[in-house]
């Protein structure tokens, strides 16, 4: 029992906020993870909106190219995609800059992480949004058109709110995937929570302590996110008929 007590006490020491405790490092890593997830989710959403519209209303070439994009991203493991995109994107950007006579730039870890994860998230977001738009009851759109509603107002007042309600579960899932995929960025060397955990554990040899602490932090993040998204979904579904019976 005393061994366990000693372990618990030393664990709390290691996790203390101020150095030599590693608590602050872990929290900074968590902040980075959340920042990257946020940016990637946002970028993915932007790509997804364009992709969904392209797949639904675009020409045949657009649709095929988007199909290739989503298929490749969904078939290849994120770790491979992250490695490839990181070297390819930063290499291409630097080559282009050199070609035009500028100096190479250092793309910061957070920016690169957002770009890479955003591209991956974009493919999934395309599918989620496309499904959500398709699930909007056609009857409502037809009725609005029959009333003479202009297309932009139609999109804003009818399609968008209904689509949002349908999309939120899928988007909530995507957000959770984004927060967990930041751990993969740590494997490639970005500074975020998993990387910070690995460094802390490697330096102090207290693997169990730090991995558990990191797990609890991720769990807290995902539970909080789930609660927030439930609220958002309830707000989005205000006034809609409850399905099922």
């Amino acid at each position, binding site marked *: 029992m005393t061994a366990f007590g000693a372990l618990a006490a030393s664990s709390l020491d290691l996790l203390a906020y101020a150095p030599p405790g590693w608590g602050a*490092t872990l929290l900074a890593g968590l902040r980075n993870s959340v920042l990257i997830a946020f940016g990637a989710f946002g970028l993915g*959403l932007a790509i997804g909106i364009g992709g969904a519209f392209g797949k639904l209303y675009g020409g045949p070439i657009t649709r095929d190219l988007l199909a290739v994009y989503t298929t490749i991203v969904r078939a290849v493991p994120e770790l491979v995609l992250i490695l490839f995109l990181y*070297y390819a994107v930063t290499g291409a950007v630097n080559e282009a800059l050199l070609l035009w006579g500028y100096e*190479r730039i250092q793309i910061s870890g957070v920016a690169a992480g957002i770009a890479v994860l955003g591209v991956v998230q974009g493919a999934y977001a395309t599918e989620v949004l496309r499904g959500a738009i398709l699930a909007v009851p056609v009857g409502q759109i037809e009725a609005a058109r029959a009333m003479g509603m202009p297309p932009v107002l139609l999109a804003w007042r009818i399609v968008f709110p209904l689509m949002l309600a349908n999309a939120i579960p899928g988007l909530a899932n995507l957000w959770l995937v984004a927060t967990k995929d930041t751990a993969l960025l740590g494997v490639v060397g970005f500074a975020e929570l998993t990387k910070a955990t690995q460094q802390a554990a490697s*330096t102090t040899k207290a693997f169990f302590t730090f991995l558990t602490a990191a797990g609890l932090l991720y769990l807290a993040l995902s539970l909080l996110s789930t609660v927030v998204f439930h609220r958002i979904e309830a707000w989005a579904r205000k006034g809609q008929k409850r399905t099922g019976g």
Partner: protein
Amino acid sequence: MKKIALAAALALSFGSAALAQQVKVGIAAEPYPPFAAPDASGAYTGWEVDIIGAVCKAAALDCAITPVAWDGIIPALTSGQIDMIMASMSITDERLKTIDFSDKYYNTPTVIVGAKGVQMDATPESLAGKIIGVQVSTIHEAYVQKYFAAGAAEVKTYQTQDEANQDLAAGRIDATQADSVAEQAFLDSEAGKACCEIKGTVADDAEILGKGVGAGLRKGEDELKGKINAAIKQIREDGTYDAITAKYFAMSIYGN
């Protein structure tokens, strides 16, 4: 909210662009005490970090220490993310095909570390049938693959030497090969003292183990190479090198 995040991301990337005149010195993000390891506040400290500071000062360069994942550090150099590698990287012919090196700034022997009480030395015969662990993408991995892999029961590769040491302490591997100084840091720790000891120095193979540790540079950067070489020479002559070494080690690690 998205807009703010996007703007922040852009600002971060452009903000770094404004500092592009610095020399970015890449070090391994993975801890490698006593050469370079992060402390709880995230700052890297160690002998190599101090040497980087001294070399940059002597060469009048504005250096920024940039941690990069070890197994991506050479591509990071060749693609321009960093300008120099000073991460205990040995000068080997294989690496010279892709990048250039400065003169060496230290050279320490390579040892086999194994569990206490087990009869073992650094020869292929003695390591036959054992499970050997190495850090991925190092000269040690290349050496083990060449000399010990044929007879060994298994060769396991780890992302960091710390993880290999951890598995050695846990008993999952029988031996690991690594730099003697780095391993000494492990053996001085509690876990190391309890479990393991140095079994012997491996036979030298200059082609694989290299001719010491040097600063990695892109091919063609002769001006930077000249400055670094001059700086290394200067700090060795004016005593800075020895002063820094004395802080961490009992004797010189420059080697021959």
